[in-house]
């Protein structure tokens, strides 16, 4: 099918883009990399009357190191940073290794060269890696409109299937991660039918060990529900304990019991629950190993 007709706007400033979205609201969509929006339009699942292409707006394609609340170091990803750029970024590899770890899993090379990190988050596909990574790593989303800017915690951002806290008149202009700290290790693991396909189920995992005990852990699953979900029951049995294969296996058993993934032509719900357990063990072990080697410290 061909894309239905629309009015195309190519503003050269963020102010103009926000004004267009304020004027057209629900009739408009923001176009950045287009790797999620254009398939929807090609299948005519979406027929926006106005497409606001933010691709010509300067200053949105940077990865910046900065300081957040309490003067803690952060790393920010602008709205036009493409996955390929994030994959090559030394800043992200060092300060937000979980983002770096996610990149090779995200679709295929020819999609990563165009698709933007922020676009994937604004789109909020339940099987996409980045929403789960944001939830695991406590990222903060910056939304901009003509009314100004607001910051939204990842935990509050994702409402459900392709549904987020973003209003129709807002642009997700930036994504900010707290820099990884000492004793923290992360991993992103998934199973898919083919390298680069959407995951049957996957896990973004963050683990912090202080002295010999797990002090913080996030098990954030994608492909397991209508949006990224943390498995708090399994996290609770890990906190305060020494990391060990037995402890990880116990968490895995709880994950398999508590998650309620759907079934489709690719995998049954039972199989997805089984995979979630396998990935829990694998993800925790990889995150733990990343601490030991200092790769994520």
């Amino acid at each position, binding site marked *: 099918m061909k894309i239905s007709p*629309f009015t195309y706007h190519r503003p050269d400033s963020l102010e103009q883009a926000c004004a267009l979205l304020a004027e057209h609201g629900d009739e408009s969509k923001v*176009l950045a990399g287009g790797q999620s929006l254009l398939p929807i339009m090609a299948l005519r699942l979406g027929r926006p009357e106005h497409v606001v292409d933010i691709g010509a707006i300067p200053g949105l394609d940077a990865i910046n190191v900065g300081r957040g609340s309490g003067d803690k170091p952060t790393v920010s990803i602008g709205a036009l940073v493409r996955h390929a750029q994030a994959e090559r970024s030394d800043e992200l590899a060092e300060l937000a290794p979980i983002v770096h770890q996610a990149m090779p899993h995200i679709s295929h090379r*020819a*999609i990563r060269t165009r698709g933007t990190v922020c676009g994937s988050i604004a789109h909020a596909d339940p099987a996409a890696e980045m929403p789960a990574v944001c939830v695991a790593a406590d990222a903060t989303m910056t939304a901009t409109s003509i009314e100004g800017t607001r910051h939204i915690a990842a935990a509050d951002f994702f409402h459900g299937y392709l549904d987020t806290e973003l209003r129709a008149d807002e642009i997700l202009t930036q994504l900010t991660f707290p820099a990884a700290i000492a004793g923290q290790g992360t991993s992103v693991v998934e199973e898919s039918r083919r*390298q680069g396909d959407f995951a049957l189920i996957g896990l973004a995992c963050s683990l912090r060990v202080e002295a010999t005990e797990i002090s913080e852990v996030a098990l954030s699953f994608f492909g397991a529900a209508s949006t990224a979900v943390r498995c708090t029951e399994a996290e609770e049995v890990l906190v305060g304990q020494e990391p060990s294969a037995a402890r990880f296996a116990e968490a895995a058993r709880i994950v398999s019991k508590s998650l309620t993934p759907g079934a489709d032509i690719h995998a049954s719900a039972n199989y997805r629950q089984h995979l979630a357990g396998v990935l829990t063990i694998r993800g925790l072990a990889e995150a733990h190993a990343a601490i030991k080697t200092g790769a994520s410290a």
Partner: protein
Amino acid sequence: MTTLALRCVINGEPVAIDVEARRTLADVLREDLGLTGTHLGCEHGVCGACTVLIDGEPARSCLVLGVQAEGASLTTIEGLANGDELHPIQTAMHEAHGFQCGFCAPGFLMSAVVLLEENPNPSRQEIREELSGNLCRCTGYETILNGVEVSIRLMAGSQDESTAS
């Protein structure tokens, strides 16, 4: 509906045409410019047949609006050969009987060309991963992977020749 002027460079030639905003880059190439070497399969980014190079990087031309190519330098399958002289990847696929029906060939070749530019000696696993975004319904992929491996040898050979001469 919006129509815009598009200026870009395609296979080294400057191009200036008016295009409707809703037209994908694939349709601009095929319908407006007659470059029908780029094939369209699924038209929503799954099959990879429409892969072209935008500023040297592989991209799905069905998931890019023509107007988004403003100012870009594009390479399509028509830009691989130098006159009558085939690109080594084309010669290699021919020698290895890489394809059967050939519908997916332009996408595979554009993906493989980038891989070989960045990594002249990829392992079979690396080739497999890089080409995982392209679907073929005839071959079972083995002959395509063989073709890329023949190309590695041809390209290494042509470099040896150019160093020798």
